[in-house]
């Protein structure tokens, strides 16, 4: 064994002056080839950066994390985003930064005895939140479920017959605004977090689009912008929030934010107002007189996938 791998044996035994590798013209040719290949590889490697330069302004590239911005920097960002909306979408938007209201924790409940799966909430979310028109994107999915199971895997979102169908019930699912959100835990850059009023938000400029959060969410509540959202100018909702419905860039993750640009002004979420069955109830869970508190105290509410310990702020109940 040791003899065969000795210093004198094998093809590795080359002395200086031998023909081949030391031929000056061949060496130069190899050098040239290497340099060309290297340059090509470099150009290919930095091509995403060149793309970035085309789609991303220097201000956006250098923008700090949302939580590190002071009010002056925020104002500059809001004005820049409004200009970009005007340039890219031809729409006059009013983008604001809505802070959580002290003494507020939002919760939502849906009466599954009333919901008939008509999809009005899905459509309202689509319009309110400036979702991509081509894909009918929305933060809400309505699952048509066979009566007798709560297994989300048996739900179907693509039903297109008259509703309610016999033997089925309808369960709208959106972000559950968990008190123990797995999605924020897995974010490698802390681009998503839970705010004081319970809403889990995303800093669309800080998100790197790794989609870990999308995989971590047991409710399938997060959406990824595969393309730049396309919204006709006349359909853009001009009332926008920095952390909510302003038009998202390509390559970032987004999710339901309880319409924080509305709810942090005291208004009801768009999906609730659109619901034609009155199945949706929203409110401040810290207010003992609120509608949502009455639901939690008087109805037999449950949460989805309770066994995972995510502690949702989103509740479901049946009347009968």
């Amino acid at each position, binding site marked *: 064994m040791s003899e065969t791998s000795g210093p004198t044996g094998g093809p590795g035994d080359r002395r200086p002056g031998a023909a081949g590798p030391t031929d000056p013209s061949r060496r130069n040719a190899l050098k040239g080839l290497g340099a060309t290949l290297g340059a090509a590889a470099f150009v290919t490697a930095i091509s995403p950066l060149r793309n970035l330069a085309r789609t991303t302004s220097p201000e956006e590239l250098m923008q700090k994390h949302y939580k590190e911005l002071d009010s002056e920097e925020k104002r500059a960002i809001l004005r820049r985003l409004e200009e970009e909306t005007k340039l890219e979408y031809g729409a006059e938007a009013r983008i604001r930064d809505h802070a959580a209201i002290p003494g507020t924790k939002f919760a939502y409940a849906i009466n599954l005895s009333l919901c008939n799966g008509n999809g009005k909430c899905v459509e309202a979310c689509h319009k309110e939140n400036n979702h991509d028109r081509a894909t009918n994107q929305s933060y809400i999915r309505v699952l048509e479920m066979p009566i007798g199971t709560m297994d989300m895997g048996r739900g179907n979102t693509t039903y297109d017959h008259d509703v309610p169908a016999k033997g089925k019930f309808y369960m709208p699912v959106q972000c559950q605004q968990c008190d123990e959100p797995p999605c924020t835990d897995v974010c490698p850059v802390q681009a998503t977090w839970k705010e004081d009023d319970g809403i889990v938000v995303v800093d669309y400029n800080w998100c790197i689009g790794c989609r870990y959060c999308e995989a971590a969410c047991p409710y399938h509540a997060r959406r990824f912008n595969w393309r730049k959202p396309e919204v006709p100018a006349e359909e853009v909702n001009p009332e926008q929030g920095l952390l909510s419905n302003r038009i998202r860039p390509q390559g970032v993750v987004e999710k339901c934010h309880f319409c924080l640009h509305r709810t942090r002004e005291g208004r009801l979420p768009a999906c609730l107002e659109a619901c034609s069955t*009155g199945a949706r109830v929203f409110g401040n869970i810290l207010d003992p007189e609120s509608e949502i508190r009455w639901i939690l105290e008087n109805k037999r509410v449950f949460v989805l996938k309770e066994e995972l310990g995510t502690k949702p702020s989103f509740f479901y109940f049946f009347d009968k």
Partner: protein
Amino acid sequence: MMFRRSVTIILGILSGVVLAIWPTITDSTNSPTEAEPDLSVVRERPATFPITVRYPTPSPGVATGIVDVNGRAITVACEVCHSMIAEPPSPEALGLANLKDFHRGLVFEHGNLTCQSCHDPGDARSFRLANGTPVEPWDVIDLCSQCHGPQRKDFDHGAHGGMSGYWDLSRGPRTRNACTACHSPHAPKPGEVRPTFKPIDRFLTGSDPDHPTPRKDADHE
């Protein structure tokens, strides 16, 4: 020189250790991160804005068999005849089965109720409770609550009937729906509807330029 440098290093390490354990020292008495939510803000806020209740009072109408240009059935309201040419509704007309001829077109599917369960026999356009107390059209919810108590309780607590406007009444008004805004009093059971809006799956529909051919394993969901 050497002495001063080592003193600096030792001071640095010491201060680092103190900084590192400081939160545990302070946490043992009062945790600043787990503060009680400030409820005073909620309780002090007065509810100042009104809640408006929409109460459309649909006329029952009798189908004439004619449709308008949009294909909707043309109906005739009761008072068209009963206020002018015809007699007041007969007290004997206690239900749909007793109505004859023209009245057969009236859609009425509301349990075992008769016209006069809600309508005043003396004036078909007025309502009355079971004990004879007159009810104004905007109080129609009181009329319905005689039988539908649980729904009334839910409505009073915002859990039935839907709403729009403000969840926070200290910031703005709210609109609610009376029973008849959604339910026809003469056939209150909601019918079937066609779902309005469906997500378009980029893989299954071929709507995505990167995936122009719909995937064959479409049923893997």
